[in-house]
């Protein structure tokens, strides 16, 4: 089993692990890429009643092929409703959506995400795409799941720019006072699951087939040693990958 998981592509492993964060009957605000892949896999395994919501306003999506844009034809294909952007962000702000899924270029210990600049804001080494809906989702989602490939360059002590604010102790008071969502609860990498503690991300458990050392390699903050057993992926979840050839084994 663990060899089989290890042989999967990095994207497939993240999507399979992240899918486990989504419950049947929940509503989920998703972005393009691995977040959308994870939600699709959840829908086709343990959570057939999961509602996927895209910022373009599409509600109840089940894209048959991976979309490039939240407004792409495959997002619309078979969806029961197209609302508009204000409606879905409004529902998020009103607390009517259960969980958000985000990725970014950088993540730090407190769960801050950066998709804006590498280097100083006014003289960036690399100008990136900016927030899009990421800041909004990070502020408003009752529960946020962060997905990242295991790439040490992406794990930093402090992100260069806080596009999407994190959680844990650093933000608890602000989030309560401003009536924002709880913020990030889980960081899913291609090797492990991390949970948000008071001090920041702590290793929860590695993915089956990976050691704790591999899960922690290149993480620049003390992330504990992980109490949980390695996370096994069910066969039906691996089988669900067949629907998504772009996630095929590396």
């Amino acid at each position, binding site marked *: 089993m663990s060899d089989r998981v290890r042989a999967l592509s990095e994207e497939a492993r993240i999507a399979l692990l992240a899918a486990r964060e989504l419950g049947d009957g929940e509503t989920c605000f998703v972005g393009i890429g691995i977040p959308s892949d994870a939600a699709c896999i959840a829908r086709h395994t343990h959570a057939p009643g999961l509602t996927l919501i895209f910022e373009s306003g599409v509600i109840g999506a089940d894209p048959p092929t991976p979309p490039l844009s939240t407004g792409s034809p495959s997002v619309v294909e078979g969806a029961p409703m197209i609302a508009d952007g204000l409606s879905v962000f409004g529902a998020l702000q009103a607390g009517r959506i259960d969980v958000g899924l985000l990725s970014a270029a950088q993540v730090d210990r407190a769960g801050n995400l950066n998709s804006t600049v590498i280097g100083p804001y006014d003289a960036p080494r690399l100008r990136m*795409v900016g927030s899009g809906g990421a800041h909004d989702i990070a502020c408003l989602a009752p529960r946020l799941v962060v997905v990242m490939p295991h790439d040490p360059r992406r794990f930093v002590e402090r992100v260069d720019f*806080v596009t999407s604010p994190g959680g844990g102790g650093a933000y608890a008071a602000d989030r309560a006072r401003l009536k924002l969502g709880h913020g990030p609860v889980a960081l899913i990498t291609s090797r492990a699951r991390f949970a948000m503690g008071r001090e920041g991300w702590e290793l929860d458990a590695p993915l089956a087939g990976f050691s704790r050392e591999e899960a922690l390699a290149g993480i620049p903050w003390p992330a504990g040693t992980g109490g949980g057993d390695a996370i096994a992926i069910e066969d039906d979840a691996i089988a669900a990958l067949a629907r998504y050839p772009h996630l095929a084994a590396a």
Partner: protein
Amino acid sequence: MSASRDKRASLAEAIAGNVHDGDTVFIGGFGHLVPFAAAHEVLRQRIGGLAIARSGTDILFDQMIAAGAVARVIFGYLGNPGIGLAHAFRRAARDGTVEIEEWTNFSMMLRFHAARMGVPFMPSRILQIGDQPSGARGLKTLTCPYTGDELSAIPALVPDVALVHAQQADAAGNVQLWGVDGDTVEGALASRRIVVTVERIVTTTEIARSPERTRIPADRVSAVAEVPWGAHPSYAAGFYSRDDDHYRAYDQVSRDAGELAAWLERWVHGAGCRDAYLELVGAERRAALEAGLQGRTRE
């Protein structure tokens, strides 16, 4: 604006009459119905010093920056959706040649909503923690007079002119737009003038057959031009699918400023007549995109 006057115009006339140097321009299209043909005409007419605004942008923003038409970008996201960075924007940010005013997708939608509703701001809970508020210039906060909640006051943005592509309209400019809207209608109705391109002009009788599809009323529209394939390489539900390969090719060509200049010469400046543009796309690809609607009937 009259609700009955014939507002049909050529694309060149529609742009020349309504888009001026230094305007703030709302660009419609949320992955769907991005007004490429209309904005390319702005570039051909060398209209400059523009502020261009919307929430989630498309590679059209990158092309307008590359063409030198843009003094300021006002946006939530500026990239090549699902593929990566906007390379001309990346270079302009590095070189300091474009002014950056960055918000988030939700806050941009709220800015247009406030403008549409005729109020100075919309309250929201976002943009109060993290570094993002500093990119959103002049953002202020307030205390709710009812609950005492601390809120951000997201300021209205009233664009001078909106460029919108839609499926169909009548000669007076009753605009029918279906499929993904995102915030296209919101941004259009926030704007002082609205210039519309459509896949086809239809009769008012045809419009009245499904009035719920009319999203922009004629009295708000300044000009309407029939421009088939006016959203390519984005798509028009019921007409043609999204040309994802075109976006991938743009990612490659736009990495180099020189190559991108040549690309603009070919696809924008050299494609003044619509037939020339459609020839560049090619009959085979157009047929594939029309067939790419995945079982949906062509309307």
